[in-house]
């Protein structure tokens, strides 16, 4: 990174028209934004119509925390653990934003969090948690169960 870029600010606009200004070092935690910066597309405000202000603020908070050198390992662990204490709506919003913005560490954490909601559960319980309708016929379900029996756990 050349020194002329070191204090550069990146401007982002959420879907609900909130603007955020962050240092480039923070922004490039997102691979998506990093590519834009590298391609020279980050000079004006970058619109993010896929991410609302609340979620974008969260993501940028995460990124800021991870470039802050004064934060200790333990503090970071606690931050990450508390970060994911969200309601479901925010969780999926965060997941999609982290996926779209490609913030690897955050994305893995959120994926793990959602996976943990599924672990050890039966299909009926999973459907309840995620509000999913069972669109199998009983015959289809039986067929899948028979197939599944051939796979090891």
């Amino acid at each position, binding site marked *: 990174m050349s020194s002329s870029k070191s204090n550069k600010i990146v401007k982002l606009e959420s879907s609900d028209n909130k603007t955020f200004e962050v240092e480039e070092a923070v922004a490039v935690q997102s691979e998506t934004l990093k590519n834009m910066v590298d391609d020279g597309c980050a000079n004006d405000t970058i619109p993010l119509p*896929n991410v*609302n202000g609340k979620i974008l603020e969260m993501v940028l908070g995460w990124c800021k925390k991870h470039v802050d050198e004064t934060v200790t390992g333990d503090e970071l662990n606690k931050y990450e653990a508390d970060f994911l204490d969200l309601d479901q709506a925010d969780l*999926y919003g965060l997941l999609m934003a982290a996926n779209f913005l490609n913030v690897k560490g955050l994305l893995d954490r959120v994926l793990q969090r959602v996976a943990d909601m599924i672990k050890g559960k039966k299909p009926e319980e999973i*459907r309840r948690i995620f509000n999913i309708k069972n669109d199998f016929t009983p015959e289809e379900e039986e067929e899948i169960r028979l197939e599944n029996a051939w796979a090891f756990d």
Partner: protein
Amino acid sequence: MGQSSSAFGAPTEFNRPSNRFNFRTSAIVSAFEPNEEVVDAAEAEFLESVVVGRDCTADLPDECLASIFHFLGSGDRKQCSLVCQRWLRVDGQNRHRLSLKAQAEILSFLPSLFIRFDSVTKLALRCDRKSISINDDALELISIQCRSLTRLKLRGCRELTDEGVAEFAKNCKGLKKLSAGSCMFGARAMNAILDHCTALEELSVKRLRGLNDAAEPIGPGAAASSLKSICLKELINGQCFGPLIIGSKKLRSLKLIRCLGEWDKVLDMLGNFNTGLIEIHLERVQVSDVGLCAISNCSNMEILHILKIPECTNFGLTCVADRCKLLRKLHIDGWRTNRIGDEGLMAIAKQCPNLQELCLIGMNPTSLGLAPIASNCVKLERLAVCGSATIGDTEIACIATKCVALKKLCIKGCPISDAGVETLAWGCPNLVKVKVKKCRGVSSEIVEWLRERRGSLVVILDACESEPLDGSGSEIGVHESGIEFPPIGNQVADASSSGNGRLAMFRTKLGFFAGRNFVACTFRRWSNNDDSFSGDL
């Protein structure tokens, strides 16, 4: 990961395509906001959705859903496949690893299974002893459906023949790793694999009944130019792999475990013609100092295991030490024959400054051998000593004062006492974990005391008489899985097998497993973990 054009399984009325990144938006329980003009409708929809209970995952792109599944094990994924049509599809299309019960009756399910799981690259086919396994037709069907297979593991598929494996090889030319155990095919199957699967990197073979004394030579074959790792276990005529071992010029790892017959000749050829090896494991095979001196030609050798090989002595180990100065990990199980001891260790201390991991089992080293190791091997991080009558408090004190880099220490079945453990409070500044097992002279009080003195040090004291070892088996890795470990009690009985033990060893049937040592297992677990952290070879 990153931007994705998503294809949703269940379209809803909010299917609005046209934002810049082709990302479907939905107003309801997601963070994605609608345009101004439909805000009110969105509000209403939101309230309604809470009542109706809308699918929370509907907005996640398939790619995200697949990523969630990757954090789940096979059992959980099976449950996910029963949730709804979309989850079934996403799971099936993104399942790269599959482990199937390879009984004959699976044949009728195979077509639909591989339509559902159309992205499998790593496949395991396991058949238990009581059932009839899949036959050649089934394997051919699988090979046609999974042409891009990179890994195949076969266990107990006794109905597969040389011809069946050959047909498989012709269809799955991209295979990189083959692990075959307890099957009936033989050398012709192996040669077919080596001829067709030209990208093969790892070959692991255990108890192939078809490899009898009349077996044709195996290799080099077309795969010889890519093969990096060979593991042979419990073969009657493993020597038929000789041409492959010598002809695979990229070979980095060779493991010979409980294979009958003498191996000095093969190792001699190796030492003359293929010296690029980095890792050699020899366990319960007939190898003498001649073989050890031959492999000492592999000057890049970093990892060496000499386990329960009575014909290897200090002389052979010294030969290795003199010429393999890059040695990083050394495991020796002397099987209480006292052929390897202080003299060999002194040679290692003198010539192998890179030593990181040392595991000594069934040997009787003293300070004469240990002190130089402690002083000269300044990178020594992991040390384990087991079943040694000569390791006492003096030796522990010596380790404590001199092993500056030591992180992990394991002492088992040695005559140490509280006095020795006490010295660990002040020595080994980098020590992270200590295990003391079956050392009767060590009390739980001293262990408590040590924990208090050094807060960050993990100290484990285990005085159990008989330890279940199957837990560690699963953490060791592919080669060691499936072995049954007898209780520790049997290990002490091994002491009676000295000198003449060799003949007795080869007379017993190949199913004789006694003697896998818990210390070595622990060690493998430690060093595997360490490797993953340090990014080592």
